[in-house]
């Protein structure tokens, strides 16, 4: 039995829009989503009346003691469909960690099956009042009873555990990671929409950053922001009649693990399985990827993804990225879109957006010489979701 994705090359991205990315937006998140969705639909050369499907993921910010209010702190697909007054036949929300990538996979399959024709996929991120992960929790029930009574809380501390394993096992130091974080900050200096545009970072800045949970510093985490991105997808033959060059979906893979504490061996075992599925799904190999947009919401995730994807042997990513190997205009334009570390906490939007912009030849002065095949992923390799895009429908 072929493990190739049966609908590979049949569904395409046709347009996009992105709001401003700010620490705190000046309008409610729902209003920002409304505006961004309308602009994405117009960008695709479509009208609101033609949109018959909406998909998204609204997970997060849910780690703190913040109330989740639809249209204010989160925006669900149902909320946006209702407030845009869309005539939708199909609406879906993705519940896994892969968030935007996972919800785009839902949309691709809805289109491939004929459940919908023109689908809006969006992601709306809010930054709650106070600190993002602050939580004046009074008692530790359910899953929290195993960690919260110890003061073990929030993703930076959870990610610190496998990163500490990595550093110890492979003899890596924080200075190796400086190369990545400085490069990602550099990559957004040609991207006026990015949160860190106009603010490059030095190795010293990185090495002197405040530690949050050793070995994770504040600069190993993306900064919480507010912003919305929206994409429009449709069948490939329909997309070819629309204004922009279509970008086709070749294949995908989704992780399933929810295991905690996060341990390096589990991450790598799950990650290698996901990546094997990904290559088989798309019928495309790693060496064919021109636009590798790996998720970087916490910097160590880039090591885990690079090694899961097989760019280097396990334990070698901290060396692999050195000596200009990941320069945006070099042989491996790793996260040329600046990722979450450069753009702000947009949860996989920078990865998908860069794949779309490069493969549709819409990246302007940043346009890569060769941009035929792109990879975007989100979350961790054992739990997240990854997609492969192509400029041709094959």
């Amino acid at each position, binding site marked *: 039995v072929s493990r190739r994705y049966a609908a590979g090359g049949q569904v395409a991205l046709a347009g996009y829009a992105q709001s401003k990315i700010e620490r705190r937006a000046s309008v409610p998140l729902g209003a920002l989503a409304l505006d961004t969705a309308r602009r994405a639909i117009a960008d695709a050369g479509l009208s609101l009346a033609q949109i018959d499907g909406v998909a998204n993921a609204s997970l997060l910010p849910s780690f703190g003691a913040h109330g989740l209010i639809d249209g204010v702190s989160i925006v669900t697909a149902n909320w946006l469909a209702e407030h845009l007054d869309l005539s939708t036949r199909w609406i879906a929300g993705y519940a896994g960690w892969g968030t935007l990538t996972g919800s785009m996979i839902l949309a691709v399959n809805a289109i491939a099956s004929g459940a919908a024709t023109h689908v809006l996929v969006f992601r709306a991120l809010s930054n709650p009042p106070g*600190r993002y*992960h*602050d*939580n*004046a*929790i*009074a*008692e*530790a*029930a*359910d*899953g*929290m*009873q*195993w*960690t*919260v*009574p*110890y*003061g*073990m*809380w*929030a993703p*930076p*501390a959870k990610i*610190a*555990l*496998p990163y*500490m*394993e990595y550093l*110890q*096992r492979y003899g890596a130091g924080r200075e190796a990671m400086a190369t990545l974080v400085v490069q990602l900050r550099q990559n957004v200096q040609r991207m006026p929409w990015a949160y860190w545009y106009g603010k490059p970072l030095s190795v010293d800045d990185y090495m002197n950053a*405040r*530690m*949050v*949970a*050793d*070995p*994770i510093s504040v600069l190993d985490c993306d900064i919480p922001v507010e912003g919305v991105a929206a994409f429009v997808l449709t069948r490939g033959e329909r997309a070819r009649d629309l204004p922009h060059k279509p970008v086709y979906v070749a294949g995908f893979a989704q992780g399933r693990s929810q295991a905690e*504490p996060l*341990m*390096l061996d589990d991450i790598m075992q799950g990650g290698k399985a996901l990546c094997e599925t990904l290559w088989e799904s798309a019928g495309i190999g790693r060496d064919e990827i021109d636009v590798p947009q790996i998720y970087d919401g916490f910097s160590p995730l880039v090591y885990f993804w690079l090694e899961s994807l097989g760019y280097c042997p396990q334990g070698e990513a901290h060396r692999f990225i050195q000596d200009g190997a990941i320069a945006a205009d070099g042989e491996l334009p790793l996260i040329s879109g600046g990722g979450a570390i450069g753009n702000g906490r947009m949860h996989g939007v920078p990865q998908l957006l860069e794949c779309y912009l490069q493969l549709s030849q819409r990246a302007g002065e940043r346009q890569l010489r060769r941009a035929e095949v792109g990879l975007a992923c989100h979350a961790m390799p054992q739990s997240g979701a990854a997609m492969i895009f192509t400029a041709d429908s094959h």
Partner: protein
Amino acid sequence: LKPLPVPDARSAGYWEAASRHTLAIQRCLHCARYAHPPAVVCQGCRSAEPRFEFQPVSGAARLRTWTVIRQAFIPAFEADVPWVIAVGELREQAGLLLTARLLDGTKASPRIGAPLRVVFEDVTPGCTLPQFLLDERQA
């Protein structure tokens, strides 16, 4: 006040044993596999008729990883900054992990694989937290 664990139907046996200064871990009565935190379905035999029992274990462990928490996030822990969180693998089963504080503190500079033992911290009359100490006695 620091948030205390709220025992539930699956965890009550663990916390009750801890209050007696015993580390008891959920064990599958079909296949003898341990699980922590307590499982809904055993990941060993995957039986759809789960039968579990909390059984005492040695409390001997090896350090798998750790972190030094330098930002509290939960206000009640502000005064504790910095503190060490350790993940220990219990001697009884590969991959059987327990997360707790390493009471030796930030000056201990622990290394992965270091031997640990579980000790018990009485937090309130009704609540005891298992914790870790580096264990020089284990080879």
